[in-house]
């Protein structure tokens, strides 16, 4: 069992938690993920590591309520215990030798992008961050990004905070004005990463993306997290859990990954509604 030692709501649907998991905390690196189960009947879900404190033995997760499990997790409090918390899984983000990087984060993806920005800043790298959200009430981690970025662009789709527009706009402008990064690291919804890669491609700037497919074991056993890369004209199957989650954005088949992600859409919708109804019933009974 793994204790929740700190909890904070970052916006109406995004929650940050520090979990006491000393073995994981000791090893975790930016870009890796964990698998958790809230209770003994729950499903296994992967969440990317949003931070860690090796001395305190805690690992930070930041998650958005998107289904039954994340909803249940979001209702747990400091002092509660999570049934299972395994990791760190996947390969860390490659940061060696980089001196000028553009980090692009979208929505809750910013939670994963932040530790990478922090690590790059520690390494003395010039960090340009572009973070995007739907609207002002969904903005998270702005101050944290500001603290480690040489330049920060905050974008909202509706212009209610920062600059109106999506993350591609400032990126495109920088690239067109001749700015060349060693690397662009994009983390967010698949469609966002797809468009970031499309912006970068004409300029040949290397682009790493972080993939978050459906997983079960996370250790290279089930094959559910497979995705297709186009490598030198050949289609190659890779497993996000052991080969990733980071991949060369120029190689990833984003359309296929997007399609695979909604495999259980009907089931998830149903499970989430059921979960919410159960909770409502519980609240009514208590009230």
């Amino acid at each position, binding site marked *: 069992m793994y204790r929740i030692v700190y909890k904070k709501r970052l916006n109406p649907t995004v929650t940050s938690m520090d979990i006491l998991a000393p073995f994981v905390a000791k090893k975790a690196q930016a870009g890796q993920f964990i698998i958790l189960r809230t209770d003994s009947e729950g499903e296994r879900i992967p969440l990317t590591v949003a931070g860690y404190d090796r001395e305190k033995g805690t690992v930070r997760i930041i998650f958005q309520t998107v289904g039954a499990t994340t909803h249940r997790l979001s209702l747990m409090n400091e002092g509660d215990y999570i049934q299972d918390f395994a990791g760190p899984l996947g390969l860390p983000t490659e940061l060696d030798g980089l001196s000028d990087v553009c980090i692009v984060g979208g929505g809750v993806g910013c939670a994963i992008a932040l530790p990478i920005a922090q690590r790059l800043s520690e390494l003395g790298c010039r960090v340009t961050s572009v973070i995007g959200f739907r609207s002002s009430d969904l903005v998270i981690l702005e101050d944290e990004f500001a603290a480690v970025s040489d330049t920060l662009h905050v974008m909202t789709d509706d212009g209610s905070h920062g600059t109106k527009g999506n993350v591609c706009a400032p990126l495109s402008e920088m690239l067109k004005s001749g700015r060349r990064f060693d690397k662009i690291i994009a983390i967010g919804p698949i469609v966002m990463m797809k468009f970031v890669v499309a912006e970068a491609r004409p300029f040949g700037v290397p682009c790493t993306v972080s993939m978050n497919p459906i997983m079960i074991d996370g250790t290279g056993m089930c094959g*559910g997290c497979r995705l297709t890369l186009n490598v030198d004209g050949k289609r190659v199957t890779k497993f996000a859990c052991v080969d990733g989650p980071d991949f060369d954005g120029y190689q990833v088949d984003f359309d296929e990954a997007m399609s695979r992600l909604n495999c259980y859409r009907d089931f998830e919708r149903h499970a989430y509604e059921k979960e919410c109804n159960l909770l409502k019933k519980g609240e009514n009974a208590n009230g």
Partner: protein
Amino acid sequence: MANMSPKKNEMPSLDPKARAKCFSEVATGYTDEQAVDEALRCLGCKNMPCVSACPVNIRIPEFIAKVRDGDFEGAYQIISSTSSLPAVCGRVCPQETQCESKCVRGIKGEPVGIGRLERFVADWHNSHSEPKAENIEKNGHRVAVVGSGPAGLTCAGDLARLGYSVTVFEALHTAGGVLVYGIPEFRLPKSIVQREVDNLTSLGVEFMYNMIIGKTLTVDELFEMGYESVFIASGAGLPNFMGIPGESYKGVYSANEFLTRSNLMKAYREGSDTPIMKGERVAVVGGGNVAMDAARTALRLGAERVYILYRRSMEELPARREEVEHAIEEGVEIMILCAPTEILGYENKENPRDEKNGFVTGVRLVRMELGEPDERGRRRPIEVSGSEFTLDVDVVIMSIGTSPNPLIKSTTRGLEVNSRGGFVVNPDGLTSREGIYAGGDAVTGAATVISAMGAGKNAARAIHEYLSNK
């Protein structure tokens, strides 16, 4: 007086029609009377050919003699002196190619039902006793076992009995490895695996869950923590796919994923948190035991038609005869001499938002014929040109083997692996590094439960020898 019937006492089983819709165990086991009657068929041969054909050398005629005399607990004690998991082996061992294949009674008729008797004895013991802590004097040595599948459990049990302090590191949230994520409830109830794990706990074996060796801790760190020897039994790894078009459509599973969702994550239960695409028409590609398990699981989840697609003929089908018969009785259709060339999916080019886009609609197959035997003696399947046809299905399950998991090899210096990625070991199970042993599927690639147990047993003996002389 010996029972000279040429036939085994039949195994009582649930009716095929009823069982094909539920996850209850198919074979229900011998009664006391049936067990004694079957035991009377054993001739008690002096040279014991059956024992030499058992990977863990269970003293078969001795335990059967105890059954014959009605001393079921005595029979259990004999089995458990060499086998750590009798209730499991009695269910999933391929006895027909091992102990029973050498039974003298098998020359003129059916061999003695050794597996059925083993299962009877183990079940009898389990329902007549509770696991209780045994007082074993500790010898002060610590051993780490990586993985809690059949190889790991066996090795841990044997070492614990010898006085070692054993810790089993399991990556998943529960113990049993393939016995819990792979083999379905109707063939091996999970309560039986749990009971075997409880037996080990009562021997003093410690289990640590959510510990992915190679990630959470490395093998070298285990030594730093004071373990003097490590047994790697991390099992088979990444599932193989065919490399044909369409394998990324939604509805294409590896057998590992399909079975893990159903077994480990309990998707077969109403109201489970874990989703699974049950399918109305399901095709399983491959002919091994895992393929049979997947097909029978699909049937129980409610599929109307379930096909096994196998590229050779019934003769070459690698699954156990009994599993194939059970599958056919339940309604699984075995299509031999055909191989998939492409998986077809729904694509609405006009509406990319069509929710059906990307889901499996069928599989393209080509007929095969058998040519000359290959290097392993199996006749090579050859495509019959122009024989392609389409089978309408909505779920395809790939059950064509696995490749070893890369996590330990990539984080442990000096561990030699072969061309297929399995650990290289000597006959003792010793790897290329001192004190590190390996066994089971992590060495051989996908194989049987009993051969993994044999490897676990073998390694336990070698580790004992190594640490005794250190």
